[in-house]
């Protein structure tokens, strides 16, 4: 724990963390200091002047809170008349050239300018001159569309691209009231984290070409999740909505703060991977290529399992720990060999030194944690002896070419549980459509051995079974979530003090516990 200090806000004593600036320090105990340009990941810039506060110790009457470190005994003034006036004055300046087109603006509902107007301004405009005209729709590349008139020149986007991605595509061009954010002609936003500027923008100046005009944000339901796009496991907020007479659909992923995993940001691929949750989903179970009822397919599956003499079970490295535990128990019951072979999920050289990882699977560490073999040799040996392969969501098409796969599975029938239709399913005798990660709760372990929990976001009209339920149907001994979690606690002792609902939001670092020995 960081050191605590005591200071006074409006005469009341509060205890805050030492070493932070005033905005963050008193923000953590629920006292808001309004700010537009300051962002904890980008540092203090001090250009918006919205965070001016008074400090009663003989320094100048107003100081920017973003650049002022919280100190013991500091007397911070927030509700004095002159502070209220300066906040109103800054808001008035910000709004001089702002178009106030909230009814058609994507940011409406999550806009700092709107919020601060309601909290700190509420004054009518005194402007009688026309606002400065600028460009309304500029394609900055990388999925970012910019409205220069809405921009308040806080410079967050510019600082993000200079400090974090170090690509510097944006700059603030001109000065005075014609200042605007722009790209240099012919050098658009071209990096894998560009759409983060849309989240960073406190107003509606930066919009995502993907989300633009799709939904009003106040209709969106939020669920806390973890990205399954790669092994980093960046924390997400899933924004989804079920419109009347339609299905529950995800409209966007937004990054969620987790200091020990992804900080404030996510990559663009991960952000746009929500589309995979909506599109090309497998929705009906099949026997061969014929669509059938789930009960029929399950009956055929059980029949196949009974008739087989040697079963191999293949797990997806994207499955949750709960699913892995349930399937592993099933394998024990069926006396089947179990593998998590998934080399095809690794794209060597695709990762970078920031968030993106080579390994595009969310829970490979989970396979290791449960001691499930992931070697190619192990899998091929098992397959050579098996007459039935039960594949729980592992896209073998990534690891093998079509011909190689056909050869490999010549003497083996396949029961495949899958979320998406794909070519490797063509050879499957029985196919069961299962839920994807936005549709169930679970835990995954990321590349840094941090166990994270994610929540169910979407409930489809046609709700599919989960892999846990299928494993139980096939005769797996673990039938309830409680049993599965108890078994999981055996494998990951770090989980012992917790229940599924009480796993800390920032995740559990398994390296810190004796669980590290299990993976070694």
């Amino acid at each position, binding site marked *: 724990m960081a050191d605590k200090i005591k200071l006074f806000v409006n005469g009341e004593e509060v205890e805050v963390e030492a070493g932070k600036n005033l905005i963050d320090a008193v923000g953590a105990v629920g006292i808001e200091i309004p700010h537009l340009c300051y962002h904890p990941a980008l540092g203090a810039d001090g250009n918006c002047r919205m965070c001016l506060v008074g400090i009663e110790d003989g320094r100048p009457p107003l100081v920017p809170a973003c650049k002022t470190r919280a100190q013991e005994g500091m007397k911070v003034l927030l509700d004095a008349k002159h502070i209220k006036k300066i906040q109103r004055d800054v808001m008035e300046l910000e709004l001089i050239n702002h178009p106030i087109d909230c009814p058609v603006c994507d940011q409406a509902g999550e806009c700092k300018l709107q919020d601060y107007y309601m909290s700190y301004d509420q004054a009518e405009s005194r402007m009688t001159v026309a606002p400065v005209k600028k460009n309304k729709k500029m394609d900055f590349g990388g999925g970012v569309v910019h409205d220069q008139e809405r921009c308040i020149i806080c410079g967050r986007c510019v600082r993000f691209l200079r400090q974090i991605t170090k690509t*510097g595509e944006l700059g603030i061009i001109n000065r005075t009231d*014609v200042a605007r954010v722009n790209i240099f002609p012919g050098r658009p936003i071209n990096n894998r984290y560009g759409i983060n500027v849309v989240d960073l923008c406190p107003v509606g100046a930066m919009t995502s070409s993907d989300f633009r005009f799709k939904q009003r944000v106040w209709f969106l339901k939020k669920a806390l999740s973890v990205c399954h796009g790669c092994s980093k496991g960046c924390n997400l907020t899933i924004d989804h909505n079920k419109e009347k007479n339609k299905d529950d659909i995800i409209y966007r992923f937004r990054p969620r703060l987790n200091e020990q995993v992804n900080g404030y940001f996510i990559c663009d691929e991960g952000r746009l991977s929500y589309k995979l949750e909506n599109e090309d989903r497998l929705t009906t179970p099949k026997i061969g290529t014929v669509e059938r009822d789930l009960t029929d397919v399950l009956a055929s599956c059980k029949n196949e399992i009974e008739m087989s003499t040697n079963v191999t079970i293949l797990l997806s490295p994207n499955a949750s720990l709960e699913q892995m535990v349930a399937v592993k128990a099933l394998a024990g019951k069926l006396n089947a060999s179990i593998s998590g072979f998934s080399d095809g999920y690794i794209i060597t050289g695709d990762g970078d030194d920031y968030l993106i990882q080579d390994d595009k699977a969310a829970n490979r560490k989970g396979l290791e944690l449960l001691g499930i073999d992931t070697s190619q040799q192990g899998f091929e040996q098992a397959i050579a002896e098996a007459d039935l392969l039960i594949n729980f969501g592992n896209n073998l098409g990534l690891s093998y070419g079509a011909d190689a796969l056909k050869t490999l599975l010549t003497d083996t029938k396949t029961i495949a549980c899958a979320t998406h239709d794909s070519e490797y399913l063509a050879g499957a005798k029985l196919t069961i459509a299962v839920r994807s990660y936005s549709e169930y709760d679970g835990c995954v372990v990321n590349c840094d051995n941090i166990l994270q929990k994610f929540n169910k976001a979407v409930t489809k009209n046609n709700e599919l079974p989960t892999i846990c339920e299928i494993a139980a149907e096939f005769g797996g001994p673990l039938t309830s979530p409680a049993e599965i979690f108890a078994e999981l606690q055996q494998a990951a002792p770090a989980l012992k003090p917790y229940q599924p609902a009480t796993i800390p939001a920032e995740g559990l670092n398994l390296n810190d516990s004796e669980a590290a020995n299990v993976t070694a």
Partner: protein
Amino acid sequence: MSDRSQLISTGEPFQFDKKRDAEFERLAKRYPTRESMILPALWLTQEQEGWVSQEAIAYIADRIGTFASKVYEAATFYTMYNLHPMGKYHICVCRTLSCWLRGKQEIVDYLRDEVGITPGNQTEDGRFSLEEVECLGHCGTAPVVQINGEFYENMDVEKLKSLLATLK
């Protein structure tokens, strides 16, 4: 201040000539960071071409090893960088208080009526261009006119007339 964000592209690659190249390298040693070279490099460009094109900004950014957006920012922030072609002789007339009180308007009117240029424009033959600028720092000898960087103090219409006659 007007919008200066529209850069003009020449369609041809830009680079420093030999003299400016040597000067660039000489100046680069003077500063602790290469980014400090943004303003001098823009000056060198303007000295060479008379104005700063889109290609020149890209060249400077790549030469310095910084973001083009940063050079773009600097070039549009400072109004003394010309972002479009100027006349052979670029006339800057100071319009700040001292010069205004001492008769800058007569000079501007003379240029409009007799030479045929208004602020922000150039003559048809491209010989002269005119700009009204803020304080040039020679208030004691107002009004002051600057032509291609040279100062001419205590100006009046007569003096300007004979001065322009020497500029071919």
